[in-house]
């Protein structure tokens, strides 16, 4: 299932996938896979993404 919340939160901050990936210390492909719903990130990565985007875990990863 696609993670559109993450995608829109990233777009709202005008960040590209590569920029977000650099900030959280992963590859662009990993961010892409999370947004496409191909990969379930670890809780540590979820927290890192939330911190960069200024969102909570519920906002981004809870349906």
């Amino acid at each position: 299932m696609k993670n559109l919340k993450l995608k829109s939160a990233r777009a709202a901050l005008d960040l590209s996938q590569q920029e977000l990936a650099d900030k959280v210390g992963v590859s662009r492909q990993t961010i892409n896979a999370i947004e496409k719903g191909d990969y379930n990130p670890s809780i540590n990565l979820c927290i890192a993404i939330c911190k960069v985007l200024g969102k909570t875990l519920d906002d981004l990863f809870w349906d």
Partner: protein
Amino acid sequence: MKKKYTKYAVLAALLVFITFLLSMAVVNNSGKPVSTYSGIVKVTTANGQIAGNDLYELPSTIIKDSGVYHLFADMECEDYMVDTEVDSLVNGNDSVLAFEEGRYLYKLSSLKASLNKDDEVTMCLRFKPSEDEPIKDGDHYVEYTVQVMRDNTLSTFTAAFSFGSVLVGVISFVLFFISDKKKSKGFDEMQLMYRGQAALSALLTCLVILLGFMFCFFMEVIPFDAATLVTVIFYPSLGVFIIHADSHDAYTVFKENTTNRKIIGPLFLAVGIITTAMFLPQLFLVIRNQEKMLELPRYIASNSFFLMVGIEMIIKTHSDKKEAELEARMETENEES
């Protein structure tokens, strides 16, 4: 130790155990001559020709175990007037041990053959006058030693492979415990996961091939020799690892560098196409003559490795490019809206 690492450790131990078992099973049967015939034959010449029977047949050897054998022959004629050709007949089918016809030295020659249980090997010595100098009439004596010997390449390669497996296992085990994972920034968590899966797939490929070979070995049908086995294990396993890791963006190098893939992909494909083009005429000859080609699996394994990896990298490069373009277009549309 965590449960998932225990699984890897068990698989690695199984791999080492199988190679050890295989080497032990083979060592007993290898390197010993199955039969040795030696002696001196008197060859009489008259009017520049071999007088009487020019063919000297040695007793037959019945093969007890299927496998790869070497047929050795060592010839020496004390006055170098007679050339000797060794015909080795397997179940009546003729094949020749080609000797270099030197005036003063007959080189030790051997023929490698894949033989089945109950095959009958008969070696014959065929004499003909030397082409180098006019033959003198009289008696000439040819000393011969002929051997049918089990190929010991299997034990050598299996022992080497076992040693290599143990060495790699020990090094991996030590590295696993001494490495500080927090300092390693080469791969992110998704890449590490896919690389782990790729390594497991490669190990399973390796095990399946080994088990298949072991099954054939115990059924006394040897599909290929040990040198080929090593290649047949190595290339598909490495290919599975590279294709699995690369297709999931886990890369085969230590960091993301798509330029490598752009170069390596076409390069591998070119190597695959060139080697296949070189190999195909040989293959057609083998098929036409209905011969047994021991190196066939080795060629197929190595050629398909280069072809498959090359194709995968080229496809991946194109799909990444399309994905990046799509992403860029969507972001532009978002900005505009």
